């Protein structure tokens, strides 16, 4: 299935909303959507949501031979999968630019940043080491997959416990099941954080947004993905062309990223530690059952919270007489089906309803215009002022 094309209207309205200082989901420009982390029954399985974006990461391990060049280091690999589940236009088993980009971000942020102590994954130098593999699958694509994939894989890695091993005399390794022996936690030195900034260039003015939604991603002029850790190190910078930025803008971006990195990293650490604590006290971890909320429920929660935080005061309904409303409604309730109706209605002169017109016109004029639209029974407009 092909991606639904983006109309000019959607493109321009996002930009003009930004010019008016607001985003579609009523966020501040530098506000990120809610992040939740949920852990599965097994160690190293984690789903992360950022708003309606949803990603699952699973860590698996096996005993392999080390690279000859690094005989005492374990291996770590990350793989990203995009299936038609994420969005209908992705094809199963076929790569695209987005997968390549995500793969690049994760490789740099997690593998090449050496956030994990690979030497601790060594069982016997030159003989056998652990190979940790992180599989990240995108379940729902609603923008900002980079941050979501990063957070899910970091949380999964921190959460992961590898089974204990004993080395036999002849050099063969016996892996103990989780029931036989307590598994060993992975040690993560630094928590990598990934933050995405979207840029919209409108009339020489640059708007900077954090955590772009899917629609914003399709419209934006360019983006900067900053990979960093709270220790003040930048691990990666991905800046796919299409826009040229001032030096100061990038610097301010990075400064902002560092201010957010700490809280983001702490959030992940806290979520992982809490879950592991729970596992120690409870006999059986609950896993995903009943603790994953659907996108619809998240959306609902978000709306309710937005409403609550903003409206403390009682809202006043505009003092319009109800009769007036009724009158104007009666006027415009003419419906007909052009294919069915035999009655002859007077042909209507159709005006081009331009944006300008609505802006400058007096309220009454807007009403008359809406009435015309009403004739089809498809368009409604109420004029009350």
């Amino acid at each position, binding site marked *: 299935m092909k991606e639904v094309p983006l109309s000019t209207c959607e493109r321009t309205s996002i930009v003009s909303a930004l010019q008016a200082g607001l985003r579609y989901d009523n966020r501040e420009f530098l506000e990120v959507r809610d992040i939740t982390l949920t852990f599965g029954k097994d160690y190293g399985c984690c789903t992360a949501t950022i708003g309606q974006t949803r990603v699952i990461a699973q860590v698996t391990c096996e*005993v392999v031979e080390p690279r000859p060049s690094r005989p005492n280091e374990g291996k770590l690999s990350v793989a990203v999968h995009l299936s038609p589940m994420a969005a209908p236009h992705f094809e199963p088993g076929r790569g695209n630019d987005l997968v390549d980009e995500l793969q690049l971000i994760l490789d740099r942020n997690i593998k090449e940043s050496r956030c994990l102590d690979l030497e601790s994954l060594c069982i016997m130098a030159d003989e056998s080491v652990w190979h940790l593999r992180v599989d990240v699958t995108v379940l729902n694509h609603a923008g900002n997959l980079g941050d979501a994939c990063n957070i899910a894989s970091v949380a999964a890695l921190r959460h992961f416990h590898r089974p204990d091993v004993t080395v036999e005399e002849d050099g*063969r*390794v*016996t*892996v103990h099941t989780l029931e036989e022996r307590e598994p060993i936690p992975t040690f993560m030195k630094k928590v990598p954080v990934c933050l995405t900034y979207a840029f919209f260039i409108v009339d020489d003015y640059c708007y900077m947004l954090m955590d772009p939604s899917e629609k914003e991603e399709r419209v934006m002029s360019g983006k900067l993905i900053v990979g960093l850790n709270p220790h003040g190190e930048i691990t990666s910078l991905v800046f796919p062309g299409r826009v040229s930025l001032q030096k100061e803008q990038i610097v301010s971006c990075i400064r902002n990223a560092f201010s957010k990195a700490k809280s983001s990293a702490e959030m992940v650490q806290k979520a992982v530690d809490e879950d592991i604590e729970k596992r120690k006290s409870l006999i059986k971890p609950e896993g995903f059952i009943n603790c994953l909320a659907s996108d619809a429920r998240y959306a609902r929660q978000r709306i309710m919270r937005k409403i609550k935080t903003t409206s403390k005061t009682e809202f006043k309904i505009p003092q319009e007489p109800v009769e007036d409303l009724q009158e104007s409604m009666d006027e415009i309730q003419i419906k007909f089906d052009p294919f069915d109706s035999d009655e002859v209605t007077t042909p209507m002169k159709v005006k081009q309803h331009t944006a300008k017109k609505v802006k400058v016109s007096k309220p009454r004029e807007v009403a008359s215009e809406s009435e015309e639209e009403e004739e089809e029974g498809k368009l409604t407009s109420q004029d009350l002022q």
Partner: protein
Amino acid sequence: MTTMDIWKTFEPDTYYKSFLEKNKRPDGRGLMSVRPITVKVGTITTADGSSTVRVGHTTVICGIKAEIATPVLRNPNQGFIVPNVELYPCCSHMFKIGPPGEKAMATSQFLKNVISSAKVLDLTDLCIVHNKLAWCLYCDVVCINYDGNLYDAALIALMAALQNVKLPAVSYDEENDKASVDIERTLPITLKARPVASTFTVYSDSIQLMDPTAEDETQGSGEVTVVLLENGSLCTTHKPGGQLILPNILDTFVDLAKQRVHAVNTLIGKEINE
């Protein structure tokens, strides 16, 4: 082209239906009768065990190659058996060049499932030295001519080839950590069970066809395969979707399959002993 051929080309559905109405199939068989089976073993001299099986026009070759491998950590005293089915375009226009298709994969998985369910082999028998050496049997099944009922033919070929396998004796020198193979001395492997598959195509609620040809398969909707052991117990039922069946129809399938088990196993036994 005869009139019958033209009819078949233009209206395959009614052509086929007209046979079924008379309780016959286009190849002259009744609904529940099977095609003749021929089995030959040792047809590939370079393999450690091999067989060629014909079920009607369906021809399948199975070759088994034994290799020495290291057992996995989890099961240090077990060998391996790896069945693999290949369907090349030469056997039917249905198959295309490239990675194995759905049918080939399903058949490989089916064979694997039957071997483990029926416990055809005791995998510990394939172990030579604990935690060091074990036999790995690669069973490659290749279809040469496809005319329906691949499951039955592939399983018969695999079973016949397994009974034909002769493994060379291996001696292991513990001090030098070296193994030597004695090609002169060979031993057959013991099979614990000899399962036989019977496939039925469901045409409608009241019409089922045993041992379907390729034409039966395209006309019908969905197959049911039951695999039985000699003692009559069901070792696998495989019905991947397709037309609904009533549970009591399964009963008749099992009864018919029971008769087939004996016939097929005597046929293989005879060929092996020759």
